[in-house]
């Protein structure tokens, strides 16, 4: 097999190149910067309302921190020449979703309201990555205030398709070879859903695993920060660097994560298959792709057992908890009128936040009581297995349309009927509500050549188990090594 182009290499491959002196951090950073400037910058300013006039550019980056990146890379090279390698991420350029504060580099939260906001502090994750020697290169685009499916970033597999959201800039850039790795955030699916749409490997860590200090809050009781890469192994290396206790985040857990790279022996491991969700794929082809992925696990000696989660009002729980918490978080924007500057497509969401403030606290507490019951149920079901699995999303990425300012993911012909959707519990929403870790890995392509993905969910703080399944799968298959070709398909 021909050697992978350097911009598509995994973290371990990039680290090997840097350590061997085959490339310097400055050269690598310059290469990614050149690619970003050639392939990414659209003919309009970001952050922006979703638009169609991209002229073939991906628009994954709100801000390219060229000077900062080159300075960091020079420092990394100096240390490498002196024989000091801080971590496997040393000298590798990365992008971070533009809602994590970066000292001296603007952090817009994806909103025009904060177009010129320049923090004077780093988020905890940025400090951790700096300590690890990684090179901050760009702030990645997202839907305004981490809104789902409303980002400007296009899908490199096909420019007319959505890259979902909200960490869409991070995942698209990772898959397009514009950054070495990325950092996303998730409240209800914002790492794993876009990772599914573009075929990235993305990990939602256990709630509390990664400090959220310096990150825009959307929901205090649901927000998580996690890694995005070109393999499950990438995610393990990154998580090891960014996890750990931080007294500045009240939800931070005092649990260290020491990544074991393997190779994992999966023989005899038990994987619970959330079968009802596989039924949401209405296309025969897609159903076959998912089944073949399960067969790959079986061929590795994994014991597969069908399971089903109880149907609980997860949508109502998210609506209640997120609107109440976001309504409180963003109250100052309404009190001083800045909310009028939110993008047009976000008007309904803003109204939801205001309504959330009006809701009696008893209803918020009722939601949290139901969530507590769900936590015990889900903990018990998942604990019977080494991990559980379901499609991350039942289909490939839908068409991206922009209508009256709204980026509408058009319903494709394979979408399940509403009635079937309403009656099918979704592993992703349950796992997010109860704080379980989940890894999205690509597992094939749909009829239109769009990536499909499986999500592997484990018990709280058992990221190693989900990474083991991901690494095992990626050792036996090559879906994670498929690359979108430039010029990107129209």
């Amino acid at each position: 097999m021909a050697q992978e182009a350097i911009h598509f290499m995994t973290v371990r491959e990039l680290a090997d190149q840097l350590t061997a002196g085959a490339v310097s951090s400055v050269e690598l950073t310059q290469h990614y910067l050149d690619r970003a400037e050639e392939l990414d910058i659209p003919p309009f300013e970001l952050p922006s309302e979703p638009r169609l006039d991209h002229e073939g550019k991906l628009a994954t980056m709100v801000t390219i921190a060229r000077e900062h990146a080159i300075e960091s890379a020079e420092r990394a090279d100096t240390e490498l020449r002196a024989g000091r390698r801080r971590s496997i991420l040393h000298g590798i350029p990365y992008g971070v979703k533009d809602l994590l504060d970066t000292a001296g580099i603007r952090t817009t939260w994806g909103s025009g309201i904060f177009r010129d906001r320049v923090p004077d502090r780093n988020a905890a994750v940025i400090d951790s990555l700096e300590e690890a020697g990684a090179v901050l290169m760009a702030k990645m685009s997202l839907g305004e205030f981490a809104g789902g499916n409303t980002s400007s970033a296009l899908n490199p597999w096909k420019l007319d398709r959505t890259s979902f959201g909200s960490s869409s800039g991070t995942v698209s850039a990772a898959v397009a070879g514009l950054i070495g790795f990325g950092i996303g955030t998730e409240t209800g699916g914002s790492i794993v859903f876009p990772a599914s749409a573009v075929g990235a490997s993305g990990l939602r860590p256990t709630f509390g695993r990664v400090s959220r200090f310096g990150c825009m809050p959307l929901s205090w009781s649901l927000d998580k920060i996690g890694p995005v890469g070109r393999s499950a192994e990438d995610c393990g290396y990154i998580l090891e660097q960014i996890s750990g206790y931080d007294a500045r985040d009240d939800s931070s857990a005092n649990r260290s994560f020491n990544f074991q790279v393997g190779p994992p022996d999966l023989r005899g491991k038990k994987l619970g298959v959330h079968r009802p969700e596989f039924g949401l794929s209405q296309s025969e082809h897609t159903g076959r792709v998912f089944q073949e992925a399960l067969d790959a696990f079986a061929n590795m000696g994994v014991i597969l057992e069908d399971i089903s989660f109880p149907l609980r009002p997860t949508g109502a729980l998210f609506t209640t908890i997120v609107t109440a918490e976001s309504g409180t978080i963003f109250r100052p924007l309404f009190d001083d009128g800045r909310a009028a500057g939110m993008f047009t497509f976000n008007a309904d969401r803003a109204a939801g936040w205001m309504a959330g403030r009006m809701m009696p606290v008893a209803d918020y507490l009722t939601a949290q009581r139901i969530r507590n019951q769900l936590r015990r149920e889900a903990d018990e079901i998942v604990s019977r297995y080494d991990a559980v699995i379901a499609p991350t999303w039942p289909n490939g990425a839908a068409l991206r349309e922009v209508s009256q300012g709204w980026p509408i993911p058009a319903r494709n012909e394979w979408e399940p009927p509403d009635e079937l959707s309403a009656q099918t519990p979704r592993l992703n929403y349950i796992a997010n509500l109860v704080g379980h870790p989940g890894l999205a890995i690509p597992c094939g392509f749909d009829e239109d050549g769009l990536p499909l993905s499986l999500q592997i969910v484990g018990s709280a703080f058992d990221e190693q188990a989900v990474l083991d399944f991901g690494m095992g799968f990626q050792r036996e298959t090559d879906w994670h090594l498929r690359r979108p070709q430039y010029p990107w398909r129209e």
Partner: protein
Amino acid sequence: MQLDRRQFTKIAGAGGIAIGAVWQQACAQFTETGEVSPETVRTLLDAQGSRSIYDGSEEFEKLRRAVENLVRVRSELRSFPLDEDEQPLTVFRRG
């Protein structure tokens, strides 16, 4: 004006009941008519303080629909059978 504890409790209590009562009214209206009236939403809005961006009719209509959505969601949650011992997950910590 300096309030003593008794006056403060009385005022705060009355306010709480009033807001709760208006929300109940919103729920009752929605059950009866499938809608929450603009007057009810305006009362809830005013109880929040500033009307902010919701003075205009177009934005206000979005808010009215958002309140209706929450009333619908609330009804789904309230009909969920919960054990009386179930506590809310107000301090969410896994570590």
